[in-house]
């Protein structure tokens, strides 16, 4: 285990992504879940039930906000309306932190509703760094950026993905949400070493881990976030805990929602893997 985190945000423990399917169950039995991550866009609405539920969960759990449409890497201008709504939601929720993805979601006013990878070039780096700074100024807080799963890489790339991610974090002074599943998926799809990836990420910048499942395609692994965490990802999680130490960790399920008990069991597994390592290192 190496350097300590120097950009102190609270350590939240072991959490889950909040999904409608588990609303009732999460209000009934919160004991094992220490915090929740909400998808920002689901609550960037004018009123109604989503905000009522959100307020209920806010009373019971520490919350963090996780967005999917900031499109920080897009060459379109940043969406002012989006940022206004995001800032208003952050003011209402007072989350421990706000995150989104290192990706672009569309250009020319279109949203593909996907997390599209960037070419890892100096040009893209300058572009993203400038926009992260803009967003951080607007939100008056440091944001977290998450690594995405990818299926294409670009001939123009001059850096590895982890070099790019580390450079963005350092130059823009932002933090990182390391999705361990996404590291594995991209490593398998592009043939790089997931351990090299972890070793390339600065310890002090990592604030959160995501754990999720994927689907094995014919040639490529597809990041579906709709399955249990795989053994390969659990193994990589252990490596991540060894390198990054005590990091707020959550299970992220976006589809094929099982009963809450199954996610709690996965969360318990994460705890059981990480805590002995963390105790030994203390």
């Amino acid at each position, binding site marked *: 285990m190496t350097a300590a985190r120097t950009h102190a945000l609270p350590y939240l423990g072991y959490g889950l992504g909040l999904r409608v399917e588990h609303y009732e169950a999460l209000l009934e039995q919160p004991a094992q879940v220490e915090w929740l991550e909400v998808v920002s866009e689901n609550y*960037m609405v004018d009123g109604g039930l989503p905000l009522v539920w959100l307020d209920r969960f806010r009373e019971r759990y520490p919350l963090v906000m996780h967005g999917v449409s900031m499109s920080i890497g897009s060459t379109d201008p940043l*969406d002012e309306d989006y940022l206004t709504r995001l800032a208003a939601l952050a003011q209402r929720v007072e989350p421990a932190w706000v995150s989104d993805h290192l990706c672009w979601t569309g250009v020319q*006013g279109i949203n593909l509703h996907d997390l599209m990878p960037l070419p890892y*070039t100096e*040009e893209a780096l300058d572009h993203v760094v400038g926009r992260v700074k803009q967003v951080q100024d607007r939100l008056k807080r440091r944001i977290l950026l998450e690594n995405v799963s990818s*299926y294409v890489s670009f*001939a123009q790339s001059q850096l590895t993905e982890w070099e790019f991610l580390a450079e963005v974090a350092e130059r823009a002074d932002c933090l990182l949400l390391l999705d361990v599943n996404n590291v594995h998926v991209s490593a398998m799809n592009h043939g790089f070493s997931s351990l090299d990836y972890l070793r390339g990420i600065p310890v002090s910048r990592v604030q959160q881990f995501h754990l999720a499942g994927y689907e094995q395609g*014919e040639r490529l692994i597809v990041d579906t976030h709709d399955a249990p965490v795989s053994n390969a990802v659990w193994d990589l999680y252990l490596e991540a805990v060894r390198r990054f130490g005590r990091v707020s960790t959550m299970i992220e399920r976006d589809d094929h929602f099982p009963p809450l008990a199954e996610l709690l069991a996965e969360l318990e597994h994460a705890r059981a893997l990480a805590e002995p390592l963390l105790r030994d290192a203390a």
Partner: protein
Amino acid sequence: MSTLQAIQQQMQQAVLTAQTSPLSSVRSDAIADVHSRLAVYQHGYRIRLRDALKNEFVGLSSMVSRGFDALLDTYVETHPSNHFNIRWYGTGLAGFLENKRHDKPQLAEMARLDWAISTAFDATDEPSIDITQLATIPPEAWATLQLVPQGNLQVLSCAYNVDTFRRAADHGTTRPHLRRYAKPRRILVWRHAMSIHYRRLEEDESQVLTAVQRGESFATLCAILAEYHGETAAMSRMVALLQAWVGAGLLRDLGTM
């Protein structure tokens, strides 16, 4: 145009058009060729948008049944999303069906009801007046009184029994037979106490509620009802409607002309 811009535009175009020819900027390797790599994004794009529409258009799904996916795919292929929330992707579906499916006008009507229900779901929260507020109005103020409706209240004109399709879908009951009315009926959609409601309006209620939305005075509302019921019965009908509207949370405020 910068290199980054060019790459993003090419990549987006490849996803939107399901382009099968290789992209010069995308690498191919021993693990997978460019086509297989792009296909993940192209397939995912279509599935995501189709699923988003399925979540919102449950009445239309019930009405179209087996042809529903194909219907949605024609919309997806011609209408990229431009909203940050995928739930809003369906905003143009009713208009699309109106233009493209002249042969089945019930589809656009059904989509319009589904969408009204969807938009009421997270519309702005507003207070509702209660019956005690009506009791405080002095007799001389009633004639110029204005009833202010909820902003989320919508009145749709329907030539078909689309509400029965939606109700069947909501309750998981048997799909009804399609019926065309001799004269279009009005369906009211609104949200009260965080629940979405929809119901048919009688013709007199529809006329009066439309007048409420126009900001007409209470005297004018009574005059409209008098055309249906005569002056004496109009007042008791107005009282009944007022009680029902207040009870259902349809009114946000009271004002004066």
